[in-house]
């Protein structure tokens, strides 16, 4: 097992620029937000220690904020603050608040009333009591809170990459999407080390002698600010337009790498999650995004696809992929799944996606409406003849397909269904399938080819020009390598595409990727 380790090292040294940059961004995010959290949390903690009546409600609010899932919190931030550093810092700040407020409060309230009375009786003013007595005595407790907040922030900051704020999450989530273990580890190991090192450092400070500590205290905010400033350093490059690409797109041959190689595209790029990308483009935070050609938000946000005139995006025909062992175990399964084959075209899929993404209809309802319209819907038989486990990736289209398959199976067979939807990315979904955690999920030929098979460039070129040869190739390889069968394609091609706002595309006369590149070179 020496080889993968070496590979990780190679990957890290190859990508050392990026790694260093991401690490600094990560530190920067952590400490800017920590600095702000201390600036807000400390006075708030002191305030509620003075006015105890407020303490219940303030701590409750901070506690509730803390329980909001980090991804959801980042999501809330986008309409308010857009994408990038601002919402990420605010979200991290919110997570750091509770431990800081609570520990400041507990630290001050815990000081014996005699000591406070003595300070008063000696003739100290309120401010002197706070600065000379209360804060120094409470400091170890307050520092413990800051320590907790730091570790939380290092962890949550990995999610900042979802909203284009950078950090080590770019590698972690990029790696998960791309099935690249080295990339995951290159992000995860430094992130874990950062957490451990910062925790240990703060533990040392916490245990420091009071006296040394008093002088050190003034250095504290300065150190925080310097570390925070790391974030601002690597921001020197730019171009007239800004692109927002998903972490997955960033690392793919048929993504950013292909754009650079085949088109020579040089554009200021930020990494962002699929969930917020379209909206950010609509709100003019981004100009070019890496979308999916059947995405409903294309219609909802009035975006247009730039023509891939050099054909770097291979076909992405969707089809269910099933464990061969499951097909044996459930003999009726294949024919039922094939009921959907050829039924959904690009425009139908875009419309279905539009209903869920924009009209906010549930995937269940969209799926049912579609099946009824196409005379495919049958009431569930309430089957007890074994359970089929359906997986799906974490975006709307996959949810809809998973729902349709569920209804088809329940209506046409005596099997029951368990859905495991929202598996975060190709790798997780595929690993679940090979490890017999699910029986099938809808996959795309292009993904199967590029993410899972990774053929050498020659084979790649020879098969991607044509959708059928791609399908033939993946279907053969999957059967041989993984004992997994590609069933008949559903019909639509959900390939990668670069998109712009329709109006901007018209204004700039950018209609294809080549014209985009020409525009960028000129401006």
């Amino acid at each position, binding site marked *: 097992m020496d080889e993968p380790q070496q590979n990780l090292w190679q990957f890290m040294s190859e990508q050392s620029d990026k790694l260093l940059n991401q690490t600094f961004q990560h530190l920067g995010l952590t400490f800017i937000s920590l600095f702000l959290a201390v600036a807000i949390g400390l006075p708030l903690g002191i305030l509620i220690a003075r006015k105890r009546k407020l303490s219940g409600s303030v701590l409750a609010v901070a506690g509730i904020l803390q329980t909001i899932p980090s991804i959801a919190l980042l999501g809330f931030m986008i309409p308010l603050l857009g994408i990038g550093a601002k919402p990420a810092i605010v979200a991290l700040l919110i997570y750091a608040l509770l431990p800081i407020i609570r520990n400041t409060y507990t630290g001050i309230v815990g000081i014996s009333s*005699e000591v406070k009375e003595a300070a*008063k*009786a*000696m*003739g*100290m003013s309120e401010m*002197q009591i706070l600065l000379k007595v209360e804060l*120094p*005595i409470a400091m170890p407790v307050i520092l413990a809170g800051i320590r907790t907040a730091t570790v939380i922030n290092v962890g949550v900051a990995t999610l900042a990459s979802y909203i284009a704020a950078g950090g080590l999450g770019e590698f972690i989530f990029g790696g998960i999407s791309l099935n690249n273990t080295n990339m995951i580890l290159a992000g995860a190991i430094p992130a874990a080390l950062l957490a451990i090192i910062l925790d240990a450092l703060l533990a040392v400070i916490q245990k420091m002698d009071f006296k040394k500590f008093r002088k050190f205290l003034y250095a504290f905010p300065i150190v925080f600010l310097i570390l925070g400033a790391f974030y601002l350093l690597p921001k020197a490059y730019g171009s007239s337009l800004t692109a927002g690409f998903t972490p997955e797109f960033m690392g793919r041959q048929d993504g950013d790498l292909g754009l650079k190689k085949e088109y020579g595209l040089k554009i200021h790029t930020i990494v962002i999650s699929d969930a917020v990308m379209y909206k950010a483009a609509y709100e003019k935070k981004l100009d070019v995004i890496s979308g999916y050609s059947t995405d409903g938000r294309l219609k909802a946000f009035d975006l247009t696809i730039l023509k891939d005139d050099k054909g770097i995006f291979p076909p992405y025909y969707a089809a269910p992929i099933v464990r061969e062992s499951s097909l044996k175990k459930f003999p009726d399964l294949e024919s039922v799944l094939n009921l959907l084959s050829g039924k959904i075209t690009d425009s139908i899929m875009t419309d279905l996606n539009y209903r869920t993404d924009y009209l906010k209809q549930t995937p269940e309802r969209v799926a049912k409406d579609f099946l009824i319209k196409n005379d495919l819907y049958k009431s569930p038989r309430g089957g007890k003849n074994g359970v089929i486990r359906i997986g799906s990736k974490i975006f709307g289209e996959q949810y809809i397909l998973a729902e349709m398959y569920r209804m088809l199976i329940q209506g046409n067979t005596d099997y029951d269904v368990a859905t495991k939807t929202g598996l975060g990315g190709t790798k997780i979904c595929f690993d679940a399938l090979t490890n017999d955690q699910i029986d099938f999920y809808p996959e795309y030929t292009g993904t199967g080819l590029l993410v899972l098979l990774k053929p050498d460039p020659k084979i790649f070129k020879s098969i991607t020009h044509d959708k059928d040869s791609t399908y033939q190739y993946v279907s053969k390889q999957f059967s041989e390598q993984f004992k997994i069968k590609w069933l008949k394609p559903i019909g639509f091609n959900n390939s990668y595409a670069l998109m712009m706002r329709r109006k901007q595309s018209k204004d700039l006369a950018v209609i294809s990727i080549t014209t985009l590149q020409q525009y960028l070179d000129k401006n």
Partner: protein
Amino acid sequence: MIRLDQVSKSFKDTAAVKSVFFEVNEGENLILLGTSGCGKTTTLKMINRLIEPDEGKVTINGKNVANENPEILRRGIGYVMQNNGLFPHYTIGENIATVPQLLKWDKNKTQERTTELLSKLHLPADCISLFPHELSGGQQQRVGLARALVADPSVLLMDEPFGALDNVTRASIRKEFKALEELKRKTIVMVTHDVQEAFELADRICLMDKGEIIQIGTPQELLYHPINDFVNNFMESERITLEFKITTLKDLWNKLPDEQSSNAKTVDQQLSIWDTLNYFRSGVDKISFADDSGRQKSIDINTLNSAFISYQNLQQHG
């Protein structure tokens, strides 16, 4: 010097102190005595405005304390508390230097004064760099006293200063306290619930109950002329000890025969009968002492006893 004029204080609906009036003369040691909850601590804390009275006024040297800046006022009044209230994050030196620091004293002056106090209070000089938790309870209490005395305030307020100590430590510190030259010039108001302590240390005792002053007077007045049963009952269980403790050889001068003896132990006329009896118990046969004009009298245990009994009769009935 200190004067409380019809001072009252209530907490919510409970009256803690009701129209208290007393005066403390310069250099006098007034002890507020009473059971817990009688309002004695509240009364004490209204003197340096740790508690603000609802009614009445407190004056020190004729100045109404309500008109003064409370911080400046407190820096000029020594304050000793039951559980010493030392700052755990300050060294002994820094604790003692609290008020000088607030008064912005020169460092050398603070240093000199601290060293002086440490030796006066029988604290080891090297404890200056230790932290409070590294000292014994008795030592901590002495540091608390040093902190209150450092700026040489003319008024000293003490809230159960020996309350948290064990009996042995307590007795020895009390003795030191009595002997401390520095305290003799000060006007002291001290709170205690310990009757013996009050009688031993007080110039005058102010006995309180339910927020009111029941009787205020010298230990002799309280002991021999209690104004009511409450006062009487308060001291009843310790009456004999108290009588021995507050009576001095000087008080008995007139009752003692004119005897002189050459091989007698010489003591001061301020020695209490209690302590004199302790001498006899430890094997001394004869004790001699001199009055203000230098005349000598020698006594043994029998002459002391009969003189004390006739003194008591005089106090109670005469």
